């Protein structure tokens, strides 16, 4: 973010349209944050007085799991991929924990769920990295495999009672002083790791390199298959963690729990400025994107329209935001 936008501001007091565009291109967070503020203001206009610390806590709590799933999409999209298996992996992990926790204890159940998720990620990564299957197809196929296996597991464990462990319920649905949600305890370290990992580590740079120009990355000595395999394992692990939070948030363990979050997770990354073509973007934008989407859906819900209208507006807003964003930040 050490942009060079500062030079143009010295020329005149009022920026020209082109220099605004420069500013936005160098600091894509600015238009996003402006949009977020506008949406919050709109929420307060629609229902005066709703914007309060407790409201912010509710929005944050709902945005955190979406932001984690958005992280999966951001990381994979940086390499020119996409991960459509996040919802299946997340639901599976939440369900595995809920069904095992009574017998094995919560920590072991979480470890087992993470191992299962990592295995799914490993297979996906081998398919994409070694066999060069298109990520869309590979993750789509894996989501069928994972969903089927989770369903099968569900039939096996139908007799034992299934309950979300209290720890996850606490993490996912409680808040400190009813304002600061406890899921931030999970999210803040994860987000810090992701941000630092992308900016400051060699692996992060390799992700950008592979996505920007795979041939150049290979010729520069990057072992792209190892990078990709590692990436999809990380993505599956992140999805599993999001799945735990979703299970705790809703206090439901079901094999299709997270399905409805798949498309919003892609939308969060895209609104956040990560290019689906690879090589451009970052996690900061995705977090704001997840917040924007959560505020939009809460705003729509508070307007009292039927669910169908909400869906239509949600889709239309994503198109408009993505279009405006592309126009503002595109290099032309």
């Amino acid at each position, binding site marked *: 973010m050490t942009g060079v936008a500062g030079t143009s501001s010295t020329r005149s007091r009022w920026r020209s349209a082109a220099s605004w565009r420069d500013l936005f291109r160098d600091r894509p967070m600015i238009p996003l944050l402006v949009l977020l503020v506008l949406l919050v203001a709109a929420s307060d206009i629609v229902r005066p007085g709703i914007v309060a610390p407790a409201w912010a806590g509710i929005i944050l709590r709902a945005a955190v799991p979406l932001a984690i799933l958005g992280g999966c999409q951001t990381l994979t999209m940086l390499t020119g991929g996409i991960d459509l298996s996040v919802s299946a992996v997340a639901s599976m992990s939440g369900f595995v924990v809920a069904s095992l926790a009574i017998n094995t204890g919560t920590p072991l159940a979480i470890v087992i769920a993470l191992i299962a998720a990592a295995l799914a990620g490993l297979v996906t990564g081998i398919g994409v990295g070694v066999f060069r299957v298109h990520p869309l197809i590979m993750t789509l196929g894996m989501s069928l495999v994972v969903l089927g296996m989770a*369903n099968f597991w569900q039939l096996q464990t139908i007799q034992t009672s299934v309950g979300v462990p209290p720890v996850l319920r606490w993490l996912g649905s409680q808040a400190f002083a009813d304002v600061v949600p406890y899921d931030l305890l999970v999210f803040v370290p994860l987000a810090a790791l992701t941000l630092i990992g992308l900016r400051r580590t060699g692996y992060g740079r390799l992700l950008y390199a592979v996505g920007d120009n795979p041939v150049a990355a290979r010729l520069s000595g990057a072992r792209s298959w190892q990078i990709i395999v590692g990436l999809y394992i990380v993505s599956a692990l992140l999805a599993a963690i999001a799945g735990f939070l979703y299970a705790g948030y809703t206090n439901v363990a079901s094999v299709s729990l997270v399905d409805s979050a798949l498309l919003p997770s892609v939308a969060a990354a895209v609104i956040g400025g990560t290019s689906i073509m690879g090589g451009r973007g970052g996690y900061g934008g995705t977090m704001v994107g997840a917040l924007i989407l959560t505020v939009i859906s809460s705003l729509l819900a508070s307007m009292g329209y039927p669910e169908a209208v909400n869906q239509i507006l949600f889709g239309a807003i994503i198109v408009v935001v993505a279009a405006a964003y592309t126009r503002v930040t595109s290099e032309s």
Partner: protein
Amino acid sequence: MSATAAPVESRPVTPADALGPAIRRNAWTIGLIGFLALLLVFTKLIEPRYGVTGIQGLAISVLPLALAAVAQAVVVISGGLDLSIGSQMALINVVSAVLMAGRSEQFGIVVVVGALLLGVALGVVNGGLVVLTRVPDIIVTLAMSFVWAGCALLVLPTPGGGSAKWLLDLVTGSLGNDWIPKAAVVLIAIVALIWIPVRRSWLGLSLYATGSNRLAAFRSGVSIGRTKLFAYALMGLFAALAGLSLTASTGIGTPVPGPYTLMSVAAIVLGGVSLAGGRGGVFGAIVAVMILQIIRTDMTFLNVDTNLATVLQGAILVGVVMIGSLIQIRRARG
């Protein structure tokens, strides 16, 4: 596969020589047809009673997905991708079911024509947004899938409506011989009447050109924007046909999109259409849809748990595509 061919000595051209490249060009489709034949034999072995009714059931059950796959194939060949096909089908399905319920047979014809026009309009909206906003296809159509699904819910909140009788009759039963299901005839007729003329004209050529190399196509005088718009309009037409086939095969309208969007992507990839664009055709995709469906049928015959069947379907999808890309990698090296 072609890389190992021995150098050809010069000799008079025979019909067999002309056949060679044709086989090579369609190797994937021919392989798929062989696989389908094997599957049919296998089905007959495990379930000796599989026969006329089985084939008719297969034809009716593949019709919506086959048309959805054709729709997806058109867009993907032109270098795009439409993730809203399932929602568009649901919208067409409910609109036609609501309008046809309790009305005359003649009115049904008006509804069908109107539904097809609506489908083209939906496609034009998608394509227009892709061309105008320059946002990647995948994002625009993903967002539009919410919009179309929401519209479907507005039109009809719960499953209901009805269908004209002639539309139901169009896909059920058989034509002349018991072994020729009407649904298959309808599918072949639709593809033959719409896709083949397009494929043979300059429009089809520009679809493939745009998909395989946008810049080269542009410099050869193809209007990229117009071609993409046309691809989406044609996709909308096929999606509308798929939605109408849902109305015809179920007799009602259901506002919740089925699994058609993702299954159509799976089917075209299995059918040899490259997601990078510019390669493949619709016939492979149709054969792939039949393979996916018959695998499902076989699982029921074998009493495989339906969930394990889902696992196997995913594994087969991934496995076949892996083999396909391995062949490509080896060919590129050799």
